[in-house]
């Protein structure tokens, strides 16, 4: 399984780092992309992940009020809320897209979040909800 995590540099990435230093166990299905702020996560990036066949996406940033840039995560919150309702509306399983707030001191929370995300994505996959991109093609396209 492949899950992409967009982590803000100041909180969640540090939180994940702490989880590592503290030798906390969590599933290895997540690939982390460090971003300066969760506000940097353009929804296009999330869509691109799904297009490329990624099974799930996690966006994680500082708790509201703790943003290194004062207010970046407030925008993220609005954007992700909208994106999620849109993805859901198009029938992309809601368990494949997650957002969380993890601070630099929350190593344990990070491990829990990852466990929960992996669990959800695995459940979605096992239930057979198709990945977002697939091999489905429109009629009559290959070579004729």
């Amino acid at each position, binding site marked *: 399984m492949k899950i992409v995590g967009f982590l803000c540099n100041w909180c969640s990435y540090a939180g994940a780092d702490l989880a590592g230093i503290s030798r906390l166990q969590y599933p290895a299905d997540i690939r982390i992309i460090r971003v300066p702020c969760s506000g940097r996560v353009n929804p296009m990036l999330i869509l691109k992940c799904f297009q490329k066949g990624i099974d799930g996406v996690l966006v994680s940033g500082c708790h509201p009020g703790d943003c290194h840039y004062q207010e970046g995560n407030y925008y993220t919150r609005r954007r992700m809320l909208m994106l999620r309702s849109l993805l859901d509306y198009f029938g992309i399983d809601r368990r494949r897209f997650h957002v969380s707030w993890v601070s630099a001191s929350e190593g344990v929370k990070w491990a829990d979040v990852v466990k929960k995300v992996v669990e959800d994505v695995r459940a979605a996959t096992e239930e057979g909800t198709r990945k977002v991109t697939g091999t489905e*093609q*429109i*009629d*009559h*396209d*290959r*070579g*004729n």
Partner: protein
Amino acid sequence: MGVLKPGSFFSLLKENGLLMESLVLQKNEFTKILKRAMNDHEVIGPREEDGRVYFRPLECMDELIWEFDNTVNNIKDFFFPPRQELYELKEETIVTFENACAKKRIILFARPCDARALKILDKLFLEDYEDRLYKAARDNTTVMGLSCQAPDQRCFCLSLGGSPFGTEGLDVLITAFQNDRLIISLITEKGEDIFKGKGNKAKQEELQSFERVKKKAEESVKREIRIPENLPDQFNSEYWRDVSRACISCGVCTYLCPTCHCFDIVDEENLRIRCWDTCSFNNFTRMASGENPRKNKFERYRQRIYHKFSYYKINFDDFACVGCGRCSSYCPVKMDIVEIVNNAGSSR
């Protein structure tokens, strides 16, 4: 065009409506024949989806629609599809899909105008560098036309050399009559093969009534496109700015056009794909450097008109338009190509 092959002289005559053999079939017999053909052919025909009629592969003959105005898409889609996988490009090898083109197909109820467009596209895709996939699709497809007995008020096929009963590009032309009778005009050998030993030869009076409905249909095509002789001289005219103002630079007119053939080649992962593209789009001619020779809307609109009515004529001796009227009926802002072309010659 090459040398005339023995026997092709007759098919040439037939294609021009001479020496054509005509059969009479009952509708249910026809359906039976096609049902049988479905075993070893993919059958494509007009089918309804949410109130509009499209050409689509048919799952059964009941889906087939017998009476319809011009369809949304046209049969070009099955020779030059919106998205076509060309081959797979891997690090060290190239994988092609040979077998896919071998599928035998029948297209039912193509309108004569759409079928005529195939003849126009043939010149582009088969002359000079021959296009393998297009060729294979052409070779393996039998096109059965349905004569157009009630042309739309937007149609102008006659003024471009077509006809609601035209046979160019068709293998068979089907004309529906009262009492569920069909007159089947056999145009090519491909068409004859399917109806071999079926139906009765058309009687004199049946042929006469065929001529009558044909004449009636032709008379009802009232619109006329008159391509100005001096069109090439109008290239730098202000006219193009004026008429293209309303254009929103979308691709409706070109994508629904039976003769528009511009395409793009893109990579999706390892697949190399050919997909439709259109001169209406701003990025059609934009180069990587940012340079764009047709960055203004009027230049793009002018390109479309000139490509159809001037350049294609110069290069391939045919206008790239069959007068189906789709571009004006589906245009989001109802730009009317006939009016625009007809008035182009008298502009400043």
